[in-house]
């Protein structure tokens, strides 16, 4: 399954990801993302892609499962 990757050094806590992908991302007390689950179910994949595109510092990414 596709997974979410966060580059913790790049992330500045803008918080758009939690708005666009509340199914998988919440924010901590300082506005930094808390992943509920790294795996992205197919049903929310479109939301996940929008969140990745919206991140102003390109800290969010999706990783495809390794090809067998």
């Amino acid at each position, binding site marked *: 399954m596709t997974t979410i990757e966060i580059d913790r*050094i790049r992330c500045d806590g803008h918080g758009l990801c939690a708005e666009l992908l509340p199914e998988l991302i919440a924010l901590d007390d300082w506005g930094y993302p808390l992943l509920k689950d790294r795996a992205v179910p197919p049903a929310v994949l479109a939301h996940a892609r929008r969140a990745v595109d919206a991140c102003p510092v390109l800290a969010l990414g999706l990783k495809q499962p390794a090809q067998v």
Partner: protein
Amino acid sequence: MIATAGRPLIFEGVPGPETLAVHRKRLGALPPAARRSDLIGILEASGLQGRGGAGFPVGRKWRSVAERAGGRAVVLVNGAEGEPLSVKDRSLMTTRPHLLVDGALLAADAVGAEEVIFYVGAEHHAARASMSRALAERKPDFGRRRLRLLQAPTAYVAGEETAAINFVQSGIAKPTTTPPRPFERGVRGRPTLVQNVESLAVAALIAQYGDSWYRGLGRGSASGFGLVTVSGAVDRPGIREIELGSSVAEVAEAAGSTGSALQAVLLGGYFGAFASADEAWDLPLEHAGMRARGFALGCGVVSLISEAECGVTTTSRIMAYMASQSARQCGPCVFGLAAIAEATARLSARRAHGDDLERIARWGAQLTGRGACRHPDGAVGLLASALRVFEEEFVAHQRGRCLRQLARRAA
């Protein structure tokens, strides 16, 4: 020193810096190239695990680098030793520099390295001086390989392996995002073996005496030996050479503790965990057994906490240090550790806000896995153990009372 099967080990013999002549007399010449050709296999068979903290199998690490190296690998000898309670690495570098050079040379041969970098904590003056002398003397042994001695900045994370590589390249000893891991792409994109100094010294002894010799040491199901640094409520703090699997009790008794009036033991340093005295006393100091009980040998720190010491205050001091040592790159680490340190300081001072105790537990649980490196993970792992072992004391402090202080007044 706990004797280990009659063989000369790291600290046997002269107490000060060992000259090359004495080193050779004590441990013999480097094994011939023929016997070294399968050193990686020998290390794998020995079961040696890394002594920097993570306990990763040494042979497997060398193989991962060797498979990718093509003769262009880099060996980074990690003597940063930023852990405040550990002194074994600086002592090893100060007093047994040639054993370490042997280990670094063997590693460079085995993985196919064209450069060897000694990375020694800037504050470890005697260690740097001793390594500098030894390397000047041994330079011919490195042949055409580039050889460097660099000062690691005085910072807890400077010894983290990606931080060490970053420092070599950019002068900034801060961790980088992984992957790539150093064995894939490290210094100048080369496969890089980052190995703690004790691991390299022990590897040199295994090269000399063989894997079955090493496996023959150790108690119970554990194999091998290692260095631990004993501190805290003991008469004779310092470094002990132990067979792995020796109990905390043996180490504590050898350092002059009877175990009476002992409250807890900090195992593995600031990246480790507190154990109650009852849990710790018979605990074997070895990787697998400790892991199974939720502890880690880590860099071999055994620090004894007396009955009189306030666990909340001790925890507060460590959290303040860990927060101050954040590389300040990742938000959760910067803000989370600072907030935990402040709330723990308020608890320690018995001026807690209404929900400080609940909040540090929640923040701690949220921090794991949320940094580029494992600095926050280490800090909150220690915090979680403190909240468990010193639970009663934390609850009392939340209510404005210190049980240790009350006990002193009653006495």
